[in-house]
Structures are given as C-alpha cells and as structure tokens.
C-alpha cells in the first residue's frame, strides 16, 4: 500500500514535469514536446541530487516496464490508418534499411576505434 502510494506520487511528479514542459514550449513558441523539457529538468535535478528519490525511481520502473500498454492508443490508431502510398513506402524502406544499418555501423566502428587509440599510444610509449 505504501509502495503504491509512493509510485502514485512519483507518477504525479512526472506528469507535473511534462505539463511544465508543455507550458515552457508554449511560452518559448518552439515545437519541442513538453516531455523533452521534463526529461531535461529531471536529468538536471538528478545530476545535483545524485540518487533518484524512491517515489520517482518506482514510478519510472513501473512506466518503463509497461510501456507497451501506454503505447496501445497510438499503435491501434496507426494500424487502423495504415495505407501504402509509393512515396511513403520508398522513404520508409530507405530510412528503415540502409540508413539504420549505416548508423549502427558508424556508431560501432567509431566507438571501437576510439577505444583502440589510447591502448596503441600506451604500447608505443
């Protein structure tokens, strides 16, 4: 019971941060989603506090463990509205296949190369 209450408090805090983000986006007149500002605000808060409060950690684990449930409205609406136009299809295929593989390869190769560089210089020294 106490744990559920704690999660509820954490959920309210997260929703509050999202609403604050919405207000900030509106105030600044930018098209950045409110949840992004909420994410940044929470990140900055955690940076100074070091450890996440129990209520927030519990609410975060709950939300991220059941993310599929919260995606259902968008997923169902998307599947119902699914239609295949040639231009959309072409961009989806290019974006989904070569671009995804290129980004994965570039990410992996760059990190692997950066990790090897200091080891080589130490060996030479």
């Amino acid at each position, binding site marked *: 019971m106490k744990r559920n209450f704690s999660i509820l408090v954490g959920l309210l805090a997260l929703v509050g941060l999202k609403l604050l983000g919405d207000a900030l986006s509106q105030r600044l007149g930018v*098209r950045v989603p409110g949840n992004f500002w909420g994410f940044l605000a929470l990140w900055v808060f955690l940076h100074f506090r070091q450890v996440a409060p129990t209520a927030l950690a519990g609410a975060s684990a709950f939300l991220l463990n059941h993310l599929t449930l919260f995606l259902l409205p968008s997923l169902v609406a998307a599947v119902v509205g699914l239609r295949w136009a040639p231009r959309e299809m072409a*961009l989806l295929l290019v974006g989904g296949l070569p671009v995804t593989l290129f980004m994965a390869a570039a990410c992996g190769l760059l990190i692997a190369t950066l990790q090897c560089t200091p080891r080589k210089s130490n060996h030479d020294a």
Partner: protein
Amino acid sequence: MLEQIAALVLAGVCYWASKGVFRLSQRHVLALPVFVSVFLVLCACAVFGLNPSDFSERIHPLRTAMDAAVVAMAIPLHQVCRKLGPLLPHLLLGLLLASVISVAGVLVAGWMLDAPWLITAAVAPKAATMPVALSLAKSVGADQTIVVTAVLLTGVVGTLLTPPLLRWLGVRDKRVQAFALGVSAHAIGLVRAQAEYPDHLDLAVAGMCGNALVTTILCSFLLFWTHG
C-alpha cells in the same frame, strides 16, 4: 464513462495476454508485446463488434502515461551514465554520429525521393523510441501511422541485423555491440540485448535513451525549426 472503463480494461487484458505470449515464446523478437497486443486488440474489436478507431479514442488517457514515461527515461539514463566512467566520452561521440546519420540520412533520402515534408518529418525520428517519435510527430502534425511504421521497421531491422553487421565489420567488444543495438533498434533492440548481452543491458538502455534525447534535439532544432 462506463464504455471508457470497459475499453481500458480490455486494453489491459490484451496487454497482459501479450506478455504471457512473449514469455511462452521464450522472448522471441517476433512475439514482442508491441506486436501481439495490437493484434489481440484488433481481434477483440472484431469479436465484440467494436470500431478500432473508437476504441483507440476511448483508451486515450493512456497517452498521458506515455508522455510521463518519456520524462521517466532520465532516471535509467542518469544511473547508467554514473557507472560508465572513461567509456562515456567514446559512447557519446558514437551516439552523436549515429543520431546525425539517422536524421540527416532520412532528410537526404526525402529530398532525393521528392517526398512531401510532412512524410519526411514523420520518418526522421525513426530511431528514437516510440513515445519520443510520436511526441515529435505530434508537435509538427505529421501522420502518426507513418511514424509508427518507421519506428517499428527500424527496430526490427536494427535488432536482426546490427549484431551480425558489427561482427562482420570486426567490432568484437560486446559492450559496443550492446550500445549500438540500443542506439539503432531502441526498445525492440533491448529484447535481443537482454538475450545476447545480459551483462551489458544497461549500455543498451543508455543507447536507447541517449538516442531519444539527441534525436529530439536534432529534429526539433534542425528539421522542424527550418520548416517551422
């Protein structure tokens, strides 16, 4: 009100059933709850004679939780970053490069294919996890059907092909493979990361959350502002 509660209960039942199917399939990537739950909802709508579009509207309150989940991603990302130590700068550079390639790649492809801007804007955040991509698309009025298809396609392609591609390219470090899997295949990739790199699952989570963050910044400030 009663209809809305019934729809939410039905959504919950389909979701829990999809989790059961996923466990029974021994966590097979094609039995992911994200696919099975939608299939079960559509089956339930057919059985009970419901219109799926109306059903989707009735379970709309769940979207508030989705937005809160994006804010909540700051917690696992912060926890992982504290543990990474000297590896962090390398991962950050890899993440930045991957995100730029992902967004710029779609922009170039959209320009070459002469795709309408709203379609390009819907596909651009494809490598961010679903709630982030949907929020970005909503903020510019892009079609959420295209967003969902792009995100799912990217997730499946990234999950199936990233590990063999990296091995073929000679990247043997499992930490790098797990991180790249999270970056390229978001939440769908985490399923494979859980099976293949259980010791480095936190790196896959960092890749997913980090890419969501960087993609939001790139899409908001490059794509959407230039066409705002």
